[in-house]
């Protein structure tokens, strides 16, 4: 007869969380595979399998057992404090558990079901540039999101609840303040710089796909990509994923008519290297991933823009790129090339936007989301409001809804409150970058020699390794000594774009 030894509650909680992480690992692979390697006809069976796994994860997590463990662990959390692994683990788990418990499973099911239908409708609506056919789906999603918001205690703005899903502790008021400040700066900047004649016909190639892939591989290898722990594949929409520790997967989309793949590869590398750098002892816990959507985006933008569009980077890489594409780039001087990949060119599509105009695309969406959720804008009036704002902020005439209100998939899949994190990422990226430069000095000189390890290691040491130990704003304060602040970003834009 053996005596059952009750494991301490912390060990039991870690056991449950590790299992949940294993199931998330499975969910991630089911998703990655469906986007990279699954034969088309496998979609229906895959949807069933994914739905089952997702439901099991949810059921297991919101169980009374987890609640009981959290209760038992409250003293330990107080005692160790949130600076400790244990304290942080309990804090984060409690936050997520309490949020998850508030939403009835039926509503979660309705939202994912509605999203499945809406995304198919969006696909067709976008292809036909037919907004009215998408209206009922968006109305339905909006109604579900309002019901979702109602599951939580009242906040200053209902939008706060949605933001909280992606950016813990961020409020609508904070975002509004930052975005208003940016708007005052960006709109005139675009007016000043947007009209310049382009000298970039050479950026339209042709750039053979295999050669582009070679260029991408060289850059990634210099950044720190290894075959031991990384993959790079092709998908229509680039993304990054970490199914498990030491398994980082990036995708890119290569178009022979431009060099966007190179920049999107560096962007996804930024997401990947953040995940790669999380403290290995956090693996199989909720702490083992990036701190928030905005922090994550700050790193993708860092590697895409602050590294990948810098003069130093191109001093190193342009000779190689030119040698890879002698036909198209043979006559293009380095300076001209660098100017072209940093040109300010207002256009209707967010995905094609440059560093300056990008922010306005986001601000526009944030403002419309606020109005939609607040009931001051009807879904059917969206195109008009969209087009007016595009004209106001960017001076752009939207040719049709396909290149306007229908361009993004986010609203169809229920991602409301997500857009602002893109621009917050830009803001944060510069706040962190200032610290990098204060510590490392002239990093562009390092880039010019193809050296990226010092920057990568600095970021790992000061940002990546913490995973989700701290709420995003606290992490930002620990890294930079300050809270969210748009001024460094504005100074950066002024210096770079005048």
């Amino acid at each position, binding site marked *: 007869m053996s005596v059952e030894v009750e494991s301490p509650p912390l060990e039991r909680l870690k056991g449950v969380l590790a299992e949940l992480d*294993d199931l998330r*690992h*499975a969910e991630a692979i089911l998703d990655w*595979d469906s986007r990279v390697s699954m034969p088309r006809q496998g979609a229906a069976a895959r949807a069933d399998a994914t739905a089952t796994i997702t439901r099991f994860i949810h059921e297991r997590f919101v169980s009374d057992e987890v609640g009981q463990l959290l209760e038992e662990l409250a003293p330990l959390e107080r005692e160790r404090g949130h600076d400790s692994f244990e304290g942080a683990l309990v804090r984060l788990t409690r936050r997520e558990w309490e949020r998850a418990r508030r939403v009835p499973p039926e509503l979660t099911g309705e939202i994912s079901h509605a999203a499945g239908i809406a995304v198919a409708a969006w696909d067709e609506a976008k292809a036909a540039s037919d907004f009215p056919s998408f209206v009922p789906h968006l109305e339905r999603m909006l109604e579900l999101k309002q019901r979702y918001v109602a599951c939580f205690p009242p906040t200053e703005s209902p939008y706060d609840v949605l933001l909280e899903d992606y950016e813990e502790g961020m409020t609508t008021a904070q975002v509004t303040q930052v975005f208003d400040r940016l708007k005052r700066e960006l709109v005139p900047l675009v007016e000043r710089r947007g009209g310049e004649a382009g000298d970039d016909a050479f950026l339209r190639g042709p750039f053979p796909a295999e050669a582009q892939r070679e260029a991408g591989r060289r850059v990634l290898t210099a950044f720190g990509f290894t075959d031991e*722990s990384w993959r790079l594949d092709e998908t229509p929409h680039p993304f990054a994923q970490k199914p498990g520790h*030491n398994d980082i997967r990036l995708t890119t989309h290569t178009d022979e008519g431009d060099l966007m793949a190179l920049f999107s590869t560096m962007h996804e590398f930024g997401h990947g290297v953040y995940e790669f750098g999380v403290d290995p002892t956090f693996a199989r816990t909720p702490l083992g991933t990036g701190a928030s959507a905005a922090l994550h985006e700050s790193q993708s933008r860092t590697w895409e823009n602050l590294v990948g569009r810098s003069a130093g980077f191109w001093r190193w890489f342009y000779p190689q790129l030119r040698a890879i594409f002698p036909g198209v780039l043979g006559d293009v001087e380095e300076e001209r090339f660098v100017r072209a990949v940093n040109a300010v060119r207002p256009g209707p599509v967010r995905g094609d936007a440059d560093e300056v105009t990008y922010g306005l695309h986001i601000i526009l969406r944030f403002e419309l989301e606020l109005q939609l959720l607040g009931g001051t804008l009807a879904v059917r009036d969206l195109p008009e409001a969209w087009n007016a704002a595009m004209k106001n902020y960017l001076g752009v005439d939207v040719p049709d809804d396909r290149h306007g209100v229908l361009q993004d998939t986010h609203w169809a899949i229920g991602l409301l409150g997500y857009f602002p994190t893109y621009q917050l990422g830009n803001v944060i990226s510069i706040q962190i970058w200032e610290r990098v430069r204060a510590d490392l000095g002239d990093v562009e000189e390092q880039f010019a020699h193809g050296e990226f390890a010092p920057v990568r290691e600095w970021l790992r040491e000061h940002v990546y390794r913490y995973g989700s130990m701290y709420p995003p704003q606290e992490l930002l304060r620990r890294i930079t000594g300050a809270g969210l602040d748009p001024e460094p970003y504005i100074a950066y834009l002024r210096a770079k774009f005048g």
Partner: protein
Amino acid sequence: MTNTNLDRLKTLLAEVDDLRKASTILFWDQRVMMPPGGAQARAEALATVGRLTHEKFISQEIGDLLGELDEGDYDYESLEASLIRVTRRDYEKAVRVPPELTGEMRHSAAIALSAWGPAKQNSDFKALLPHLERNLELRRRYVECFPKQAETYDVLLDDYEPLMKTAEVRAIFDTLKEELRPLIREVADAGEVDSSFLHGDFDVQKQREFAFRVVRQFGFTDDEWRLDETPHPFMSSPGEGDIRLTTNYRPTELNSIFASMHEFGHGIYERGVAPELHRTPLGTGVSLGVHESQSRSWENLIGRSRAFWRHFYPSLQETFSEQLGEVDEEAFYRAVNKVHPSLIRIEADEVTYNMHIILRFELEQELIEGRLAPKDLPQAWGERMHEYLGIDVPDDARGVLQDMHWAGGSLGYFPTYSLGNVISVQIWERLKEDVGDVDDQMERGEFGEIREWLRSHLYVLGRKFTPQETIERVTGSRIDSRPYVRYLREKLAPQHA
């Protein structure tokens, strides 16, 4: 009421099936896509999903539902009766094994497998020995979970070939031994067939194109299939409409083509299972033996036939003109069908292959019954190789260490390979009666009618009936080695004519 119970059972089983699919894709990804650094996390994820699948299946609720449902309420042939019958059998087996034992077996297998690689590399049997002993001990404990059978080995066999008895297999194998040993000698006496041209320089990209051409002609489409490359070829079906094969391209030989056809056979079987069986325990091939019958059909009965090569050889010859330009079709046909005793099972020809299996089948029984100690395996192996195939084993790497099965804890698996050979010809004989001009069709590169016959007679059945019932339904008789022996004799006749 019963209907509600049945619906509920179906729902629960569908969820279990979804979890199995997740494991399948995790496993496929591990072998085809995963960066090596991800191995540790993947092992953990697989273990958790595997355990959850098991827990969900042996749940009290499924047990209660099976208690209330009665297959006798439905026509034996109906989906409902099959579902209850097969689930009950699976369930009763699954609940007998304590989860701790399953966990120990899995753990021990994982460790033994990682020891097997280096042990094989260094031909160091002693390094693997403690792991084999441990696996064997766990297998004995596993056997004890089940009611006593006529032979201990019956329990092991049942996992791979449900309801098959050791005595039946022995009878079949004894016949094969008796018939094949003289046949192997006769072939040897008739003189060496020249197959030297099969070893040379075969461009891998061209092999890939050729392998794709063949499987496409068989019925592979990009909509539903994949063909990737791994060191050990395998087939995986992670969901309806999603069949994945792998093959192995070696720059010095053409094995990739045969491996692709072999895996296609496994894949087309899974693809042909009736749609209404999907997301139930019935939605897959009925046993390893029957599965292997299909991989061997497409690899050997089709892929090593004269008619097949009459169609494909001209283009193969053109593709590899440097190697095969001077080799005529008949010489090529003979070379890919050459019978020649050799050391390695997976490289063995159609005839000697069975001797490799029989040897393993016999040793496995002796091991599980304690008549042979694991430490004495190399010697026993060597003696039997000499006796059955007349060859001396130079080292353990090319002897007892060549296969990963025992390290992986699979005892009772090997016989299904040869049973597959036997069953394949039984089915093929029936097919030829119905279809008639099979050879003419293959010569024209037409495989649609063959595929369709196999689908509508065999593949659709999935696990609806027992393996033996399935074989009887398709062929009209029980498992029988005579057609297979006849086939080999006929095929080899011209070789020593």
